[in-house]
């Protein structure tokens, strides 16, 4: 609007002079956030975020699923077949036991089918097909379909008498929420081609994730929703486990970590005698460690949802992962725990990490490959 009066002109001039500063202040001031529990709920669950975190979770979870299954390749029919360690007769006998008598909650499995070719043929086909599906999902190929299939594969392979109820039952949680995320990804905020509508976005593939430009992907409601489900579920797991520890005397007296470090069947009098000299120091360290772990678990929701405490969350997750592998010999639980902890990183933090850790590798590989390609093409041209 045009200003004519001298007073208005003066005010307008001042405004013009102050505009850059005012603009700066406006840029620095936090945007007004609507308050109230309803708005907080909607903001938490339904804020669109770039799906970089979801893609990273998929890659890490996919690698975890593969590391859970591939080393068992030699024993696949023994572990998962109806003629293996737990055969059909045993499954029928177990189904007659009262509820709670079977410590491993089997549930349903696609491996229980006995086709005309025999269960071994099914297990073989399912095994290699399952590995391929998980690999494709990890790479980001047709994620809308491979996400669902990956979840089906993971829950089906839980049906083994040698499943670890502690470890293995974390995996379907990861697979389920990732499946939900990829089933819904892109439907609301992207214009999808019919192929993308069916198979999922190709922009989430590993190559697009690692070589694409920062902030390329459209913010997504589905990505935020899936990651939030993962985060809340894992917070419940950690706090519940912490409260369970408080029911046990060994945690109160700080001796809980003594036991995994002293497996009964591997202990000899000589080994224990060797520790006698430092008994007080060993028990001091173990008790301190167990109390630090307890404190971390019981304050987990604070660590998880406060950005300035993020480093404590990640350090705890990392130490938990190492402790689980080296103290308990759990090769899946620790990495799963670490991946769950990483789910609390924001999209910006994932972008920062990708920029520093992965994209330089790919761009370096690209720049190294480029001159070689150019040389090759020159050679071709001259010949």
């Amino acid at each position, binding site marked *: 609007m045009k200003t004519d009066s001298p007073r208005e002109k003066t005010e307008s001039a001042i405004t013009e002079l102050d505009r850059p500063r005012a603009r700066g202040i406006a840029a620095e001031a936090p945007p007004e956030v609507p308050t109230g529990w309803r708005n907080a709920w*909607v903001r938490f669950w339904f804020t669109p975020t770039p799906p970089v975190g979801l893609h990273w979770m998929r890659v890490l979870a996919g690698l975890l699923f593969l590391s859970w299954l591939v*080393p068992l390749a*030699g024993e696949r029919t023994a572990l998962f077949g109806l003629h293996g*360690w737990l055969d059909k007769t045993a499954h029928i006998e177990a189904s007659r036991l009262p509820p709670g008598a079977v410590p491993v909650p089997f549930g349903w499995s696609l491996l229980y089918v006995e086709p005309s070719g025999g269960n071994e043929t099914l297990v073989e086909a399912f095994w290699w097909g399952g590995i391929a599906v998980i690999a494709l999902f990890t790479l980001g190929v047709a994620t809308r379909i491979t996400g669902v299939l990956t979840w089906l594969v993971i*829950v089906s392979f839980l049906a083994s008498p040698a499943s670890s109820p502690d470890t293995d039952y974390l995996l379907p949680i990861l697979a389920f929420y990732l499946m939900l995320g990829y089933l819904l990804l892109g439907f609301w905020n992207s214009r999808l081609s019919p192929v993308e509508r069916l198979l999922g976005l190709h922009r989430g593939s590993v190559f697009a994730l690692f070589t694409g430009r920062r902030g390329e992907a459209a913010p997504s409601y589905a990505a935020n929703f899936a990651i939030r489900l993962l985060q809340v579920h894992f917070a419940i797991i950690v706090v519940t*486990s912490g409260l369970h520890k408080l029911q046990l005397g060994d945690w109160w007296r700080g*001796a809980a*970590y003594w036991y995994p470090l002293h497996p009964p069947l591997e202990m000899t009098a000589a080994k*224990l005698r060797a520790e006698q000299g430092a008994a007080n120091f060993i028990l001091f360290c173990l008790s301190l460690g167990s109390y630090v772990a307890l404190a971390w678990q019981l304050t987990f929701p604070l660590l998880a949802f406060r950005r300035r405490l993020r480093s404590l969350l990640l350090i705890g997750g990392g130490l938990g992962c190492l402790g689980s592998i080296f103290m308990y*010999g759990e090769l899946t639980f620790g990495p799963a725990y670490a991946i769950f902890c990483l789910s609390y990183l924001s999209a910006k933090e994932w972008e920062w990490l990708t920029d520093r850790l992965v994209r330089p590798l790919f761009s370096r590989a690209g720049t190294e490959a480029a001159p070689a390609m150019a040389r090759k093409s020159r050679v071709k041209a001259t010949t």
Partner: protein
Amino acid sequence: MSAKRSAPPLPGVLIGAASVFVGLHFLAIGVHVLAAPSGPWVTPMGVPSQATGPKFTEKLDEAVTTAYLQPLHMTHNYHFNGNRGDTPGVAFEVRLKDADGQLIKTLRFPSPQANAWVRQRQAMLAQQLGDDEPVQPLPGEVIPAPGQKMKKKTIWEPVGPDDLEMREIDEHLVPKNRQVFGPRPWSLIVARSYARYLCREYGAASAELTRLSRQAVMPEILFAPKIEDEELKTLTTRFGEYRHEN
């Protein structure tokens, strides 16, 4: 094909539906977690025992577990077994014999030859064999009903120092002068199934499964004036011989 830079707002109906899903989903998980048994706590009887979950969660937990959590394979209550440190160490040995009773092979699990992942699975299988349950003797004198046989109980019977053997005895013969333990039905199912598997794999006529277990070593042992190997006793428990033709 091209992505829009800003996401259009979600309609209220969609937000409402997703919120209901979130609420019910975590209600189911929360109820299942609350319904888990807790403890062991000290009881007025002096014997520590587990307490059941609160009553208000009982029926609700049954319903949500069957209808929702079981199909999703989310039935864990996050009271991890690994939190309990003092579980005994368990391994097992299987002696495979041919039709003439000649020893073909002795296998030990967890096997040092297996890779770490398979060894972990074998250790899990061994743990399934390790959890015994107390067998209660019947009070007073019991006589079976006319024409009926006495019920049987499977117990561990001591046959030597640190050596137990599985016996199936009439229910009224369960000793009353000592604490008696027996294998859990699930342990027996796993033991028989694994024996069948090994017989098939190695063409054996019979398999004899023996469990080797040792109680957890307590940290107080470090303050003992003397530690001898005899204090770390391995208990041998024989599940008996499984014959493949049976």
